[in-house]
């Protein structure tokens, strides 16, 4: 992914991550801390976390167009990096007590669910578009 494309992806992802983080925190607190109250700092931290996790997209930077395998490889690196960032910041800001296994488990599960949902939606849309492109190409060059 070149610099221009990467910046566009990071810009788009910032909003997706922020929405994902807000949704996860809502569900997380609903399950474990229904009495929780959020401060102005927490909102700032959610935005900060979105910005930090967005930086992980730099893994996809490449001067040349990456092949399919290279892209999958980088995505395999991207996920653990994201997890590490999220867990580190959540622990540092006391969103999660890292000594309590169930809290860490719920937190990571929610993160993975959001990640999986975003990936699944993107993959579905891309597959649908690929089918349409194949159909149009076949019609155009049928003769």
């Amino acid at each position, binding site marked *: 992914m070149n610099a221009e494309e990467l910046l566009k992806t990071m810009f788009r992802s910032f909003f997706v991550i922020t929405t994902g983080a807000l949704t996860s925190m809502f569900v997380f607190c609903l399950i474990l801390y229904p009495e929780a109250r959020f401060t102005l700092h927490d909102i700032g931290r959610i935005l900060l976390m979105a910005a930090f996790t967005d930086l992980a997209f730099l893994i996809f930077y490449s001067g040349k167009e990456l092949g399919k395998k290279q892209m999958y490889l980088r*995505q395999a690196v991207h996920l653990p990096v994201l997890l590490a960032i999220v867990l580190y910041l959540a622990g540092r800001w006391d969103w999660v007590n890292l000594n309590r296994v169930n809290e860490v488990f719920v937190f990571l599960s929610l993160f993975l669910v959001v990640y999986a949902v975003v990936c699944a939606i993107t993959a579905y849309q891309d597959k649908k578009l690929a089918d349409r492109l194949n159909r149009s190409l076949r019609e155009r060059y049928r003769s």
Partner: protein
Amino acid sequence: MKIVIEELQDGEEERIIIKCREMSDELLRVLALLKSQGALIAYDGNEIHRIQPKEIYYIEVVDNRTFLYCADKVLESKQKLYELESCLFNSDFLRVSKSVLLNLSKIKSMSPALNGRFEATLGNHEKVIISRQYVRDLKKILGI
């Protein structure tokens, strides 16, 4: 240079007449273009080839050198990618990434390649990545 186009009378043969004081480089280029009839000039070492665009699968720039990939050979062009792009305007060629012009008629199938990109498998089994920013142009050409 002045260009004059005259309508022919019935039965007259179509022709191009060039009136000049001497053959300039510009005129020679125009003549070469007329003679090539849409063919591109490419090189294989010291050999010069005239190649029809329909024979080319894709054109790629690697380390500032332009290569034309055909079914069984790779030739080099002295032209820049943007020059070839304008030469091949209104043909089956489409810019699919910063360094590749792809002949759409050679695509066998397409599949997603993560992050809004697509991978085109060509008739010669080679694979070319279509960058996200050029997918819009492809959709437009294919009427999607």
